[in-house]
C-alpha cells in the first residue's frame, strides 16, 4: 500500500505539518528479494552450469551419462535409496506407537519421554555415529566386549558390526526418528476429544474409535513424517561418512564429498548433486500436498482436550519399552562418549584407575586446531544466528504485515533453501564463490553464507508463526493512538516477539554448531569448524579426543543457549503465555 503522508496534494487539503515521509516497506522488500536471489540463485545457477560442462568448459551431457552407467555412481545411488527407504519405514514403525503412547495414553512419565526424544534432536548425527562405533565396532565395541565377556566367545567373533549397511541404517534411524515422533505426537494431540466422544456415544468401542477416527486423522502426519525421514536419510552426510567409508561403500553424499578430494572433479559433483535436489523438491511437494488437505481442518480446530486411553496393567511395561528404545539414541551413546572422554583407553569401560583428565588437556592444549575451530564455530554460530534471525524477522514482517505485491515471491525465496540439501548447497557455494566477482572461498564469509541460507527457512517459519500469534489489531492500536510504524515495531511488536526471536536465534545457533555437510565442502585449514575438526580427528582414529570435543561442544552450546535466554529472553514470556 502506498502510504503517502503528505496530504497537501489532496484536493482541498489543509493539514498541519504535512511532511512527506517515505514508506520504507517497498525498498526493503526489493532489497531483501534481491539479496535472497543472490544467496540462492547464484550457487544453484553455477551448480547447473557445471553439471552440464566438462573439465575444459564445453557443454556436454557426459557427466550424467557417467552418473547413470558408471557402477561407482550407480551403486551409491541405489545404496542411498535402500538406506532412506529402510530408515523411513523403521522410523515409522518405532516412532508412531511411541508418539501415541506419549500423546494419547496414560503411560507414566509421558512428558519425560517426550523431552528426552526432543533432546535427542540435539545430537549431531556424526557424533551419534561415532558413539555407536565406540559401542558396536566389531572388535573394540563395548557391547561386543560385554557379549564376549558374558558368553566366552572367541575374540574374533562379534555380536554387532556397525560397519555394515544394516549398522548404518540403524544409526541413521536413531537420529531420524524424532522427526516422525514430533509430527505424529503433535497431530495426535490435536485430534479433538469431542470427535472421539461423538464416536463413543454412537456406540463405537475404544479400539474401534481409535481405528476409525484417531488413526485416519493422524495418518497424514505420519505420511509426512515418513517423507521427512526419507529426505533426512537421503541427504545425510555425517553418519554415512563415519560408518560407510570404513565399511567400504558409498552413499551419494559421501560420493559427492569424495569428488572434492584430490584431484577435485566439480563437474561430476555438480551432476551428482542434481538428482538429490530434484528428489528433495518432489518429496517436499508431496509432503505439503499430504499435509495441505483435510488434516488442517482438524488440526486448526479448537476442540475438547484429547482423551487419554487407559493402558491398565500395561502402563509400566509401556514405559519400560520406551526407555529401552531410548537407550539406543540417547543413553548408550552418551554413556559411551562420557566413558571415552574420561578413560585412558576409550574402548574400555571406565574404572577408577582408568580415570583421567588427560584427554581434555590433550584436546585443549595440544591439538593445535582446537582453539581456532572453537573460535570459528562460536563466532559463526553467533553471526549466523543473529543475521538469520533478523532476516527472518524482517521477511516475516513484510510477508505477514505489509501485504503488498511481491511478498509472495519473498516468502517463496525465504522457504526455497529448504529444498537444497546441505551438501548440494556446499557444492553450489564452492562453485559460485571460488571465482569473481565474489571470491569468498577460504574465508569465514562463505561458511556464514552457507549457514544463513540453510537455516533461513526454519527461522522464517518460526518468525512467521510468531507474527501470526501477535494479532494485527495490537499493532493497529498503536498506530491509531499516534505511533508511527517504526515506533509500533519498537513498543509493541518487538517486545511481543522477543521471546520468539530469542528462540529462533538459539535454534539457528544450535543448527550451525552441528552442521557438517556444507562445512565439509567449504572449509580450509584456516576456517575449520568443530564439526569438521571432529570429522578430521576421526580419520586419525583419535576417539577419546572426539568424545571430549563432542561433549564440550554440546555443553558449550547449552551454556550459550542458557545465557541467551537469561539475557534477552525476558520473563515476559511466561506472562504472555497465559493471555
Amino acid at each position, binding site marked *: 500500500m502506498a502510504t*503517502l503522508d503528505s*496530504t497537501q496534494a*489532496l484536493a482541498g487539503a489543509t*493539514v498541519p505539518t504535512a511532511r512527506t515521509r517515505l514508506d520504507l516497506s517497498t525498498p526493503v522488500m526489493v532489497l531483501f528479494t534481491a539479496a535472497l536471489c543472490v544467496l540462492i540463485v547464484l550457487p544453484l545457477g553455477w551448480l547447473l552450469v557445471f553439471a552440464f560442462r566438462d573439465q575444459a568448459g564445453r557443454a556436454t551431457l557426459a557427466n550424467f551419462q557417467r552418473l547413470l552407467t558408471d557402477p561407482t555412481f550407480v551403486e551409491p545411488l541405489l545404496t542411498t535409496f535402500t538406506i532412506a527407504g529402510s530408515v523411513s519405514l523403521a522410523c515409522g514403525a518405532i516412532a508412531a506407537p511411541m508418539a501415541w503412547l506419549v500423546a494419547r495414553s496414560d503411560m507414566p512419565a509421558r512428558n519425560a519421554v517426550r523431552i528426552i526424544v526432543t533432546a535427542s534432536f540435539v545430537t549431531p548425527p556424526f557424533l551419534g555415529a561415532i558413539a555407536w562405533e565406540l559401542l558396536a565396532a566389531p572388535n573394540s565395541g563395548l557391547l561386543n566386549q560385554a557379549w564376549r565377556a558374558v558368553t566366552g566367545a572367541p575374540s574374533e567373533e562379534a555380536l554387532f558390526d556397525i560397519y555394515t549397511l544394516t549398522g548404518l541404517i540403524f544409526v541413521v534411524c536413531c537420529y531420524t526418528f524424532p522427526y516422525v515422533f514430533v509430527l505424529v505426537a503433535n497431530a495426535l494431540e490435536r485430534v479433538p476429544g469431542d470427535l472421539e466422544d461423538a464416536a463413543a456415544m454412537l456406540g463405537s468401542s475404544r479400539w474401534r474409535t481409535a481405528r476409525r477416527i484417531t488413526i485416519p486423522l493422524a495418518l497424514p502426519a505420519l505420511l509426512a513424517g515418513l517423507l521427512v525421514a526419507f529426505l533426512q536419510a537421503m541427504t545425510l552426510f555425517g553418519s554415512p561418512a563415519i560408518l560407510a567409508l570404513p565399511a567400504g561403500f558409498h552413499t551419494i553424499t559421501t560420493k559427492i564429498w569424495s569428488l572434492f578430494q584430490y584431484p577435485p572433479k566439480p563437474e561430476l559433483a555438480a551432476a551428482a548433486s542434481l538428482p538429490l535436489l530434484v528428489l528433495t523438491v518432489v518429496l517436499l511437494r508431496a509432503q505439503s500436498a499430504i499435509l495441505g488437505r483435510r488434516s488442517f481442518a482438524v488440526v486448526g480446530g479448537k476442540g475438547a482436550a484429547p482423551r487419554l486411553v487407559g493402558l491398565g496393567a500395561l502402563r509400566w511395561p509401556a514405559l519400560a519399552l520406551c526407555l529401552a528404545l531410548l537407550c539406543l539414541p540417547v543413553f548408550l551413546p552418551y554413556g559411551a562418549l562420557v566413558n571415552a572422554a574420561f578413560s585412558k583407553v576409550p574402548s574400555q569401560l571406565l574404572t577408577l584407575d582408568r580415570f583421567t583428565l588427560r584427554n581434555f588437556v590433550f584436546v585443549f592444549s595440544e591439538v593445535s586446531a582446537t582453539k581456532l575451530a572453537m573460535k570459528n564455530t562460536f563466532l559463526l554460530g553467533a553471526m549466523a544466528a543473529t543475521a538469520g534471525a533478523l532476516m527472518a524477522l524482517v521477511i516475516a514482517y513484510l510477508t505477514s504485515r505489509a501485504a503488498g505485491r511481491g511478498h509472495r515471491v519473498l516468502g517463496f525465496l525465504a522457504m526455497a533453501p529448504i529444498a537444497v540439501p546441505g551438501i548440494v548447497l556446499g557444492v553450489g557455494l564452492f562453485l559460485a564463490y571460488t571465482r569473481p566477482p565474489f571470491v569468498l572461498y577460504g574465508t569465514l564469509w562463505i561458511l556464514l553464507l552457507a549457514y544463513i541460507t540453510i537455516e533461513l527457512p526454519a527461522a522464517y517459519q518460526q518468525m512467521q508463526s510468531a507474527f501470526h500469534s501477535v494479532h494485527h*489489531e495490537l499493532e*493497529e*492500536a*498503536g498506530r491509531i*493512538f499516534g505511533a508511527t510504524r517504526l515506533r509500533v515495531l519498537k513498543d509493541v511488536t518487538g517486545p*511481543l516477539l522477543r521471546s520468539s526471536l530469542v528462540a529462533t536465534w538459539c535454534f539457528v545457533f544450535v543448527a550451525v554448531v552441528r552442521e557438517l555437510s556444507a562445512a565439509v565442502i567449504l572449509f580450509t585449514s584456516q576456517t575449520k569448524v568443530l564439526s569438521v575438526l571432529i570429522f578430521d580427528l576421526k580419520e586419525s582414529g583419535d576417539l577419546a579426543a572426539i568424545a571430549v570435543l563432542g561433549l564440550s561442544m554440546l555443553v558449550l552450546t547449552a551454556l550459550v543457549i542458557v545465557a541467551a535466554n537469561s539475557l534477552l529472553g525476558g520473563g515476559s514470556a511466561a506472562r504472555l503465555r497465559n493471555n
Partner: protein
Amino acid sequence: MADLALEGLTKTYGANRAVDDVSLRVDHGLLASLLGPSGCGKTTTLRLIAGFIEPSAGKIRVGDNVVSAPGRVLAPERRNMSMIFQSYALWPHMTVAENVAYGLTLRKLGRVETAKKVADILTTTRLSPLADRYPAELSGGQQQRVALARALVVEPETLLLDEPLSNLDANLREEMRFEVRRLHDAYRYTTVYVTHDQSEAMTTSDLVAVMNGGRVEQLGNPREVYDRPVSEFVARFLGGSNILKGTARDAAHVEIAGTVVKGDGAPLTTGTPAAISIRQHEIALDPAGAAPKAGVNNLPGKVVRNVFLGPQRDYVIALPDATQLRVTAAPDIDLAPGFDVTLRLPEARCRLLSR
C-alpha cells in the same frame, strides 16, 4: 469542526466488493452506527476510516481535509482518531495504566499531566484498583473498559468502535451500551459504532446505516429506519417483520393472496412484483366474518399455531395461498388451531416495498 464524510467509498478484494460505493455524512458530535450482518463490510469500512487500508475508489473527508483517497492515505497516527477493536487489542506486555498512558506519552504530555489524566479516566471507568494489573489478569468486561479508557484518554476528534460489546455477556452488554452513549454525550466527539445487534444500534445512535453486501441499504435516524424500512432486507434485519409478497395494483396497492392491500411508502409501479412489511405486534386478530373496518386492510386467515408466552401469545396464521405470518397478540385472545380469523393490518403500518 470534524464532520466525517464518506463519498462513494469502495474497497475491493479481487472480485469481492467488501465495501461498495458507501456515502455517509456524520456531523461533528453525532454517533452513527453501521448495522448489518456479519461479512457485510462494517469492519472494512471502519478500517478505511481509520486509515489502515487504502480505498479502491471514493474519498473520506474529515472537515475540509481529504484523509483517504486511492493512492493517498493519511497515516492512522496522524488522524487524531481513537478506536476500540473487536479483540480489544490491549497490549499484553503493558499494565492497565501503561496501556492507557501510551497514547498520551506519544503526544509528549508531561509526566505529571499524563499521570493526572490517566488517574482521571481510570476513575471514570472504575478501573483505578486494577491499574497495575496486566490485561491477561482481567475479566472480559474489565478489558472492555480498559479499551474504552485507552481510547478516550487521548481526547480524539473521532472515535471508532468495532462491535465493542460482542464479547460481553447479556447483562453487561446492556449496561455498557448506556455507558458508551453517556461517555459520548459527555465528551462530544464524532463516533462511528459498528454492530450487528439492532437493539444496540437503536439505543445508542443518532444515525443508523444499515449495510448489506458492502452497500448502505438505508440511512436514517433509528426511528425512521425502524418505522419505514425501504427494503425487504432492512425490514427483516430489524426484526419482528412479516414480509407479504404480491403484485402492485397501483402506486399504493398490492394484491396479496387474492386481497388488495393498501400500504404506505414510496409509490410502486403497477404490475411489478411488490411486497409489504408489517411487524408482528401491529397486526390485530378478529374472528372470521367480523365487520370490515375503515383504514384497515382485512385479510382472511386460519390459525396454524398458538403458543402462550406469558405476557403475550405468539400466533402463526396461514393466508389462503398458504403464506404463513406471525402475529403477537394479547394473552387472553385464545384461538385454537384451525380457527378461521380476520387479520387487521392498519394501512399506515403496511410499508410498501418494491422487489
